[in-house]
């Protein structure tokens, strides 16, 4: 249930950009030049990766359609857990 809620929140935030300065981590699925397909809890979004060096399988912190930091799975998981925790409240 909580995962569904998180997904809805993430989808809503990406669809409507409700939180301007929030950045979420997502997993890179594929690259196409300076654009990547990034998976956010099942919601796949095109992201500009001009600011980071990254490859499929990496996680990136995404803000306003742009990856601002590249990170390993462990770090990304710790941030994702945070959002899950925030949603508990």
């Amino acid at each position, binding site marked *: 249930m909580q995962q569904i809620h998180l997904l809805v929140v993430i989808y809503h935030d990406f669809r409507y950009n409700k939180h301007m300065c929030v950045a979420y981590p997502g997993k890179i699925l594929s690259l196409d030049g300076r654009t990547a397909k990034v998976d956010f809890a099942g919601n796949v979004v095109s992201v500009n990766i001009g600011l980071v060096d990254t490859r499929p399988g990496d996680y990136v912190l995404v803000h306003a359609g742009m990856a*601002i930091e590249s990170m390993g799975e462990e770090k990304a998981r710790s941030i994702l857990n945070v959002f899950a925790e925030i949603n508990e409240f």
Partner: protein
Amino acid sequence: MSFEDKPFKIMEVCGTHTSAIFKSGIRDLLPENVRLVSGPGCPVCVTPPSYIDRCIRIARTPGHVLLCFGDMMKVPARGGSTLSDAKAAGRSVRMVYAPFDALALAAKNPDIEYTVAAVGFETTAPAYALLIEEAQARGLTNIRLLTALKSAVRAIEWICETGEDVDAFLCPGHVSVITGSAAYAPLAEKYGRPFVVAGFEAKQLEAAVRDCICGGSGVRNLYPEAVSEEGNARAKALLETYFDLTDAAWRGLGTIPRSGYELKSKYARWIPDQVRDDTPDVIPNAAAVIAGADPQSTAAAVSSDTLPPGCRCGDVILGRIDPPDCPLFGGSCTPLRATGPCMVSSEGACGIWYRNRSPVIAGADPQSIVIY
């Protein structure tokens, strides 16, 4: 926890922190002498009303479409009308998730000029530089940027310079991803206060608040998962390449020297032609129409680039008062029809307080509470 029993004010600069702090319940755990106040960390809230006027003017120009983030839609312009009103009145306003959405639109409709309402801090500004690069690479000439980009770090510095009694700063997490924690080092040295970069988890925030109180002056990075000392070098290089730091108007605060990112003159062709025209556009705002008011008169009443009468957003984002202390809070100013910008955005302090407050504490009419 050891600290002296004197008032201690911590400014959480980032709106997302304000929200996370509320939801985590940290506010209720703090001793009475420690106050958490919101800072100017919401780009939408500090965007001046004249900027919204310019957005509306572009949206009404034939052959032009204005692209903006969702948060911008409800921010009142000088006449009290919003981009949402403009859209309802048939103007070309379109909400986008990311600035890069302009690329596909511009490629699909080469006869239409797409102007992106470019607001944001250091975190978002590089996206607009990347947008220009990408548009150039794809040979697109029908994209423009109406910039109101600002430096959050510079705003923190300005608050220190003006001598506001803030004892410690919770530095914005995602601005720091770009700037790096080292950006606060000169401030810590000059003003001798704690600058703590915080994540968004309850435990991280609790640790950061504790560090603000007990850690003494200096820069500490408690969000190492995402923030490095030097920041994102490519993003910083893009900012230097494309933007000049200029004096910028902050709604509620006035002009802060060298706090705005403006496109360099060699990129002038990306700036929309309508920028110079500065007369307010009059679009009947929904509330005024319902109340039977003459839209012309509401426009005249708020003609300057200041806050609407009675609105205390300026004091809120300087941490001088808490949002419920504003006489308009919860009365004429609610998230559904905001008077001041801090009520509009999901990251604005007033909106966050409104959504998270206890009606008993805030002394408000429970009927006025809107459940989202």
